[in-house]
């Protein structure tokens, strides 16, 4: 990678870092709005019920209560909360307020009061009479004959089969899988199941809404998708897009949990109904059970291979639980196949299909990985199991059968997100380098299959390979505007949404690199629907690649413009001029600085604002790749699993900011480790989530892992901005399979249901002894 860059590829400090470490008021709740009404929600205590009557009289009489709104006060508009490309591939099955409630936590009424106490008091004093309906919680029972129908309303649309609670359905075949499996020397068939997960972003979902001086609705929100938020609010509230402005300040974590439009409509409703500013901040319990969770999925997997170790057929037939509403239901399911199956591209036949069903549980939505980890668990572990049956090193087996640079897979073209994909050849794939480095770091060859014992404790190692994407090709669009100032600095305006990932910083680095100025000459402003150009938002690992390419193009246009203007001013031929370190130079030694050039064009010569915009839509979605390894210790007396070491190497193309890129890999790995070992959601018999706080829902802490070793390999993606592709999600794909495979290596126990609680291991140990 003999590319030499000035600003990209360097560990520049985050452009918002200073404010963050100094505790400056930068998040939505920090915006003072002293007269904002406090918005609280009354939630359903029943998983499935029809509202017979609501009496708000007592609550309305409480001093300082300003308004209470129920389904009787709002126009019935079907929509989807999914913040994704329009028209959305998610069903329109959601109503701001409805007569029917579909999970414990579904919203029944919106209360607005002058203070917190009155709002809480009012919520308690609303009397609701429910006609309780039978619920269905188990996704495997949701489509059974006689199961209660969750979306029986006439006006929802885009649902695959309402009568059977099937929100969406997908099936794809390449070749004849069953026939091919029959002709394989080895075939493995198993069922894998992965439970849901909470995002647990530290900043709760919250929004502030108010009318500005000309009566436009201003929405300040902790959102990953400001432009989708504006469009959906316009749809629900029947307000022109021109009358809505969505601003995203710093946000305290998203991970997909803020990729749905959840809190904003309630605050906006209050502002519209009362004319007053309104603020809604979810409590931790509401964040857990009243937003989105991850899709629980189960797959029947079959893998067939030849004696020589060639994988010839893969089949994944699954079911996904979208809960009460269908945001992101089809797309997350498709990603379970589209971002896992191309990894093993040397097969003759592939099958992928299944149903995404409604249940009376909290609605699932987008979550880092977006289905890929749910698909990779069965795929990787089944391949691992097969390798053991074939007496092969599972790493060798995965290595032999996985995709490499210059290769492709037909799946890229067949499966996109909600529709067909695009054909693509791997222009950059350093999977082998990831494998080699990870293997060495974990000491694979000397540790695998050794079952090293120390008293009751036994150790083992496991591996998993993964891929992801870089945005949704031909759908995700990002745009950037760059405007020049007379001191040679530039305002970079981007719709892209920095969730803490550092995207403002790396987008600034891209502009700085093209314009040959230091990063501090780029003033980044992002995510304000009035002031920044469109961007789909922060999801699908798209920002670096899609928004980054838009910034590169905009900066190149500015550079061209600057050179044109300099040629005119210096009276030189345009082709003689070069821009370097902020100075335009001619071959004869004549020169003009960016600062001089801009000042002149603002005040004295050929006056104009130097300003350019560009948009970018990916033609491809180059996957990042990763190889991860886990070493675990299992106490055979208690079942306790200890993660000794976790190693993950990734190919994200050229890391535009290595420290930030590494942070994505480390952070996603830890989130996956949490999901694999600690994060467990438990529901009461009535469907109420019991694990809705940080005491009962165990986010991993600093003492919950041994060693975490991450690394990025040298790579360059030719279609990416300065060689970059994505890194935000891939790290969360591998912990579950790598840890499952390590537990097997240590104990001979195959855990096919994640998370891997110590109790499950102990039960298996006891079973083995019997």
């Amino acid at each position: 990678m003999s590319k030499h860059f000035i600003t990209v590829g360097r560990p520049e400090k985050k452009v918002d870092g200073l404010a963050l470490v100094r505790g400056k008021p930068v998040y939505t709740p920090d915006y003072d709005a002293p007269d904002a009404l406090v918005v609280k929600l009354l939630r359903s205590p029943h998983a499935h019920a029809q509202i017979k009557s609501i009496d708000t009289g007592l609550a309305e009489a409480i001093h300082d209560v300003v308004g209470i709104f129920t389904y009787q006060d709002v126009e019935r508009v079907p929509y989807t909360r999914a913040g994704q490309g329009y028209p959305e591939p998610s069903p329109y099955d959601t109503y701001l307020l409805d007569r029917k409630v579909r999970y414990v936590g579904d919203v029944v009424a919106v209360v607005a009061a002058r203070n917190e106490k009155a709002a809480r008091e009012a919520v308690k004093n609303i009397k609701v009479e429910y006609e309780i309906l039978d619920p269905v919680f188990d996704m495997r029972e949701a489509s059974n004959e006689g199961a209660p129908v969750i979306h029986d309303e006439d006006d929802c649309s885009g649902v695959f089969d309402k009568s059977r609670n099937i929100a969406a359905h997908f099936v794809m075949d390449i070749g004849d899988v069953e026939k091919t499996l029959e002709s394989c020397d080895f075939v493995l068939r198993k069922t894998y199941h992965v439970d849901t997960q909470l995002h647990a972003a530290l900043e709760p979902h919250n929004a502030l809404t108010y009318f500005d001086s000309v009566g436009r609705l201003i929405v300040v929100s902790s959102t990953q998708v400001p432009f989708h938020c504006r469009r959906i609010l316009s749809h629900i509230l029947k307000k022109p897009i021109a009358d809505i402005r969505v601003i995203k300040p710093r946000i305290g974590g998203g991970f997909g949990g803020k990729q749905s439009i959840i809190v904003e409509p309630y605050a906006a409703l209050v502002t519209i109904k009362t004319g007053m500013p309104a603020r809604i901040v979810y409590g931790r319990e509401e964040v857990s059970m009243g937003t989105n969770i991850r899709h629980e999925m189960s797959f029947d997997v079959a893998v067939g291979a030849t004696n020589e170790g060639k994988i010839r057929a893969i089949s994944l037939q699954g079911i996904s639980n979208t809960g009460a509403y269908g945001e992101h239901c089809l797309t997350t399911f498709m990603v379970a196949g589209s971002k896992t199956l191309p990894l093993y591209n040397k097969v003759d036949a592939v099958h992928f299909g299944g149903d995404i069903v409604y249940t009376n549980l909290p609605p699932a939505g987008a979550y880092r990985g977006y289905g890929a980890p749910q698909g990779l668990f069965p795929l990787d572990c089944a391949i691992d199991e097969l390798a053991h049956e074939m007496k092969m090193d599972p790493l060798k087996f995965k290595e032999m059968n996985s995709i490499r640079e210059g290769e492709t897979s037909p799946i890229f073209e067949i499966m996109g997100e909600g529709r067909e994909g695009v054909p693509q050849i791997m222009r950059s794939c350093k999977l082998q380098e990831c494998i080699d480095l990870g293997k060495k770091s974990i000491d694979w060859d000397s540790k695998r299959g050794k079952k090293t014992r120390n008293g009751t404790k036994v150790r083992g190692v496991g591996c998993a390979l993964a891929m992801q994407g870089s945005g949704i090709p031909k759908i995700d669009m990002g745009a950037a505007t760059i405007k020049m100032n007379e001191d040679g600095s530039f305002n970079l305006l981007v719709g892209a949404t920095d969730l803490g990932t550092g995207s403002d910083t790396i987008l600034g680095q891209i502009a700085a690199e093209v314009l040959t100025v230091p990063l501090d000459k780029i003033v980044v402003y992002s995510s304000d629907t009035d002031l920044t150009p469109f961007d789909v938002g922060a999801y699908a690992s798209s920002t670096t690649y899609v928004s980054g390419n838009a910034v590169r193009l905009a900066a190149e246009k500015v550079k061209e413009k600057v050179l044109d203007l300099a040629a005119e001013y210096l009276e030189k031929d345009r082709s003689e001029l070069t821009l370097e370190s902020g100075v335009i130079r001619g071959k004869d030694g004549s020169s003009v600085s960016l600062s001089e050039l801009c000042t002149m064009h603002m005040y004295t010569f050929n006056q104009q604002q130097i300003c350019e915009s560009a948009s970018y839509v990916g033609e491809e979605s180059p996957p990042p790749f990763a190889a991860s390894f886990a070493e675990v210790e299992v106490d055979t007396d208690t079942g306790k699993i200890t993660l000794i070491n976790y190693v993950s190497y990734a190919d994200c193309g050229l890391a535009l900011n290595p420290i930030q890129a590494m942070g994505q890999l480390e952070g996603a790995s830890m989130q996956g480790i949490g999901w694999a070992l600690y994060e467990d959601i438990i529901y009461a018999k009535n469907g109420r989530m019991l694990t809705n706080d940080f005491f009962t829902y165990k986010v991993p802490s600093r003492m919950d892992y041994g060693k975490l070793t991450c690394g990025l390999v040298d790579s360059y993606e030719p279609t990416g901005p300065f060689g970059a592709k994505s890194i935000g999600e891939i790290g969360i794909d591998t912990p579950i399979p790598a840890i499952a495979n390590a537990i097997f290596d240590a104990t001979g126990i195959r855990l096919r249901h994640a998370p891997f609680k110590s109790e499950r291991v102990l039960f298996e140990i006891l079973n083995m002894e019997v």
Partner: protein
Amino acid sequence: MRIAFTVNGRLHELEIEPGEYLLEVLRRIGYKSVRRSCGSASCGTCTVLLNGKPILSCSTFAASIDGQNIETVEGMADGDKLHPIQEAILEEGAAQCGYCIPGVVMTGEALLRENPDPTDENIRLALNGNLCRCTGYEPQNRAIKKAAEVRRGETDE
């Protein structure tokens, strides 16, 4: 009721509700670095120092701090010069969304005052109550370690 206490050395005298928590009171008087996440003393986000010791302001009654000294991250930098922990957090990429950072800085500072040369284990244990969902902890642990070195004068600032 009326209470008086100092925040970062500055005296505040004000009227509070008896049941109010310190977190709300601090935010009301402008210390917006003190933020709510769990609201139940289980994530460390709202950590401030009370007479030099880390406490969780979301579950500490404001009434109980009458006459005492509070420190928040607003008081850590010396003018434009960042505190070594703040500087190390920037250098190590230890702040992603940044929501946990004030709590991490304050807990880290309390640790370094007590133990200027902490081991990795000491750091993990001291900051175990500070959840971070973004970074995977490693960059933060490195940052505290690095800040300790700077504080001891072993590394150039």
